[in-house]
């Protein structure tokens, strides 16, 4: 609107003209810069972040043939470990691998067909229930799905 105003205004004295230019600059610059400081964060916000997943509810645990029957492996599930167990050819189980006693990581014992925590000898059965030792609660069970030859672990709904 500055320009529209100038065109219609009576000719001003020099010092006034100078001040107007300064004000126009200030106005244009200030508004533009402040708007930039608002839009910059917005643009950065809209830009997809490097890690595109908000949360881990599902994790690819590898191929079916990579885990032989009667064995288990630790898989990263979000920021906590999970234990995937292949009981036999067709039966799979998965649990949070965090021992409910003192948060150590549990493991599958092939010789005993159970889940064992090395820290204080807590054992769980293949349903995650405490068999012996200090753990106060069962392990959190996760869901295993076989999609083609991929094993997928997900959180229980």
């Amino acid at each position: 609107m500055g320009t529209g105003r100038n065109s219609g205004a009576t000719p001003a004295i020099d010092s006034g003209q100078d001040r107007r230019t300064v004000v126009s600059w200030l106005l244009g610059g200030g508004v533009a810069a402040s708007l930039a400081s608002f839009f910059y964060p917005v643009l950065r916000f809209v830009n997809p972040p490097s890690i595109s997943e908000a949360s881990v509810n599902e994790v690819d645990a590898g191929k079916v043939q990579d885990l032989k029957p009667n064995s288990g492996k630790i898989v990263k599930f979000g920021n906590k470990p999970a234990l995937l167990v292949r009981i036999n050819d067709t039966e799979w189980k998965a649990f949070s691998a965090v021992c409910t006693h003192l948060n150590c990581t549990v493991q599958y014992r092939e010789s005993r067909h159970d889940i064992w925590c090395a820290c204080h000898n807590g054992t769980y059965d293949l349903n995650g229930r405490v068999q012996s030792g200090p753990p106060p609660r069962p392990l959190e069970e996760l869901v295993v799905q076989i999609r083609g030859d991929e094993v997928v672990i997900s959180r229980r709904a």
Partner: protein
Amino acid sequence: MRAPAIIFLVYWSLSAGAPSAPAADSCVTCHSALEEAEGAKGPAALIKNDVHIAHGLSCADCHGGDRTSDNPDVSMSKAKGFKGKPARTAIPKFCASCHSKPDVMRKFAPAERVDQYELYQTSIHGKRLAAGDTNVATCIDCHSVHDIRPVKDGMSPVHPLHVAETCARCHSDKRKMAPYKIPTNQFEEYRTSVHWEAMTKRGDLSAPSCASCHGNHGAKPPQVESVAAVCGTCHVTFEELYEKSVHKAVFSGVGGGGGCIVCHSNHAIHQPSTAMLVGPNAVCSGCHDAGTAPAQTAAQMAAWIDGLDGALKQSETVLARAEEYGMEVSEAQVRLIDGRENLVKSRLALHAIDPGEMRKPIDAGMAIAKETLAAGQAALREKDFRRWGLALSVILIGIAILAIRFLIRRVETNGKQQGPL
């Protein structure tokens, strides 16, 4: 065993209406009256909380006699099988008359063990009792008598929380222990241990008390060879590593108990620290003179553990500071838990006395410490960046506000000029 009770119940219900009906149980009736007269709390009062009574048994089922008779001469007659109060030396056998018989126990507590008497006979207590020493503990000294509660009952003297105190009743008594020439400071020491703390402060009932290592009915100090195995029932991995270590052979030859207790002691097991490895109170220095290669290795291991501990603590401090400033660092904090686990593992690996074994968790832990420290520092930088960004933005807003105010003034002075036109 239930049969007499049932017969009695039938009898009682049939005769309930009769004016001269005998009371519920003549043992209880008479003894209650006697106790009341004497003003003492005796068996008749105590049995209310007894597990045997709860299972439908009565005085006569242990002591014999005839509870249906009001006549003491009949009810407590030899003819009716009255056994009276057993002699101390006879107590184990007295209890075992049921507790060692699977067929009897099956009716009341099918899962209960029936080998307590057998075990007791192998214990020091049992052996001395057999030799005629009546000062030693029998069944009732631990389980109490007449108000015998199940072990899981919180008021039972043999409930996990009370076992140590129960043993200490005799074993901390200097006079009682004098003839046997054994120390009496075990309970005192145990009460300073991590095990006692776990049990009483954290309420972890699986933490060991006396019986966990010494056995209960077959109580006896573990032999030198078996100390590691006893500790290893819980500290499995420690035992495995120790078995592989050079110390195993040496410690087994130490008189008066070897294995784990050479370094950790037996009853006063305290939270271990690197002060056990290096420094004036180092347990290693008991065998290894300062400057020797093993002492240097110990110092090296202590330095690794302290280094990792310090690095993790530093990360923790930086993350905590970032959090105070309102930064989200929960992911790094979760990661730090893994770091702590590696510290635990490195302390574990130490027991193999193999620096190579220990290096793995130390390296892994150091990597995590570095990573989380970087995350914390990045968060702190981000905080500064936010403040600067804010300052810049506020300055720009200030300029814009100033400019608009100028504009308003210009518009309004113009307006006044235009007004009359």
